[in-house]
């Protein structure tokens, strides 16, 4: 049986005396669109940072494509990092570079390309995420919030990775912009066959794009398919999926199904 694409086992994260994760397990299989959900301060971002190797966990195992990354050096991690893309919450675009140069930076670091091929491929990625071609020569400060998010995805796709991490991709977007971004996520998943892991608060996004959901409650993760997680008895999960804001959405989804 092939390895899960992302596997977290018995993860413990502590800051001083504050325990953020205590034995957290998570598995993302190939072709999943996996949503990480949780209240503010529940450690969603810390979990993502642990998976990306930006945060060294107190204990536990993080495997990406079967390899434990918690004990690898920076140099050993490099080829693994070329296999996934990350779009940070606020884009984290390099402010001194144009969008085109932002997308090219991973290519320059990881691929041996002639400059005309690099231009073409970077431009392709920019169009793929739905940005107009003239956005390529703009600096991040000249972009709107939605365009920054798309540019961040274009940069994450630079190396054609099979796995994509998105940190709150629809936060800060208006409902139409958020829906358009959901379309992009679906496109990436269905057409480009990407496996996607995203942190999100957005119920609309979850119901439209995700097939599996992991909820961080009590410093652990409860994960299941979307259909089953909404029936989970944990009070926080109940409140989250059956609160005032969620009810209409859920009813709609049921009717549609």
């Amino acid at each position: 049986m092939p390895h899960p694409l992302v596997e977290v086992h018995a993860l413990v994260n502590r800051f001083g005396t504050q325990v953020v994760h205590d034995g957290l397990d998570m598995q993302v299989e190939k072709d999943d669109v996996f949503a990480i959900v949780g209240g503010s301060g529940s450690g969603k971002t810390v979990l993502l940072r642990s998976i990306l190797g930006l945060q060294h966990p107190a204990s536990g195992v993080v495997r990406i494509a079967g390899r434990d990354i918690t004990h690898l050096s920076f140099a050993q991690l490099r080829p693994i990092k070329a296999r996934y893309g990350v779009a940070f919450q606020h884009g984290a675009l390099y402010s001194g570079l144009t969008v085109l140069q932002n997308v090219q930076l991973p290519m320059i670091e990881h691929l041996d390309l002639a400059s005309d091929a690099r231009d073409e491929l970077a431009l392709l990625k920019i169009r793929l995420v739905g940005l107009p071609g003239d956005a390529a020569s703009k600096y991040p400060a000249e972009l709107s919030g939605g365009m920054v998010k798309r540019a961040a995805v274009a940069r994450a796709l630079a190396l054609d990775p099979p796995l994509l991490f998105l940190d709150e991709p629809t936060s800060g977007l208006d409902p139409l912009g958020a829906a358009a971004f959901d379309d992009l996520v679906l496109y990436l998943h269905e057409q480009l066959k990407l496996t996607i892991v995203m942190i999100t608060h957005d119920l609309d996004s979850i119901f439209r794009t995700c097939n599996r959901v992991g909820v961080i409650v009590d410093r652990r993760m409860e994960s299941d398919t979307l259909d089953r997680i909404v029936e989970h008895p944990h009070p926080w999960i109940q409140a989250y999926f059956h609160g005032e804001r969620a009810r209409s959405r859920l009813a709609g989804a049921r009717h549609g199904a």
Partner: protein
Amino acid sequence: MAVEVRRTGDALLLELTGEWEARQFTAIDAQLAAVDLTGAQRVQIATAGLTSLDLSAAWALRRFLQRARAAGVAVGFRGAPPDQLRLLDAAVEEGGAAPAVPESLAEKGALISIGRFTVRSGADLMRWLTFFGRACVTFVSGLGSAQRLRPISIVRHVYETGITAMPIVALIAFLISVIVAYLSAQQLRGLGVDIYVVDLVTIGVLRELGVLLTAIILAGRSGSAFAAELGSMQLNEEVDALIATGVDPFEVLVVPRVLGLIIALPLLTIIADLVGLTGGAVLCGYLLDMPLSQYLERVNESIASTTFWVGLMKAPVFALVIALAGCYHGMQVRGSARELGRQVTLAVVQAIFLVILADALFAVLFMKLDI
């Protein structure tokens, strides 16, 4: 990853096998470019042997297809064409025409450059003056109430720019006075007028070196800090947040820094003067065997009543220039981290330049006034 070419008459069969991924792009592109299309009428591409085909590799294939079609060769796939090609076509269509390369300065001639430079310098100067004017107006209008002058903020800046700078200012003042004493002792000893070493050290430190070096240290230390702090606040939209709250950023950010430095720099200058004279005493004792009592007596004789004040009165002017340069360039930061670095550099360079320029003007002024 490989391309196998089989030729039968005027038909080519390309068999693609293995992993076709972004990291092999250059090799793939080279292999496809090497396919000889001369004499071929039809090309068939078999993709059954591919284990993977990502978008970058598909782009290389698309390039090849375009070349073949341009050469008038009919291209077909054995089986269905890969999905990736359809995605690429859709993406290219949707994106519209390729963007024009951003033109840099359209015209480049010496005259045009000079013109641009002049206009830009003029605009810069106007902005500077506007900034200075606004700072002055804000200060004057704040004079009415103690609260609007932000005393707590001023105290914080006196502490950060003044108290914490004391060790480095003292150390540098000591070393500079040692250098002056040493240099002049070497020159004057031959003439038998060692005693003038004291005059040189005293007048040099009190009139010029004490205040000038302190100002230059603060330009590097606090001018840069002001620019970096305000600049990152600009990037973070904190300045906009202040304005949106109805708080004048000049009142809470600029004026307290300027006033803080205007208080701190003269105090630091006094310390530098004291330490500088001490350094002179140490070196005169060591090099010239001059007892301390004789040194002090000579110090008293060499200075006029104005010497100390001439040095000290320059300090607030230097402080004003340094703080304004730092705050001005900090507030000019827009958009990017690179811009922040550029403005901080400008702040320090401009502060040091203006301090020295002001010092030169003071020297001329004092000579005319015969002080």
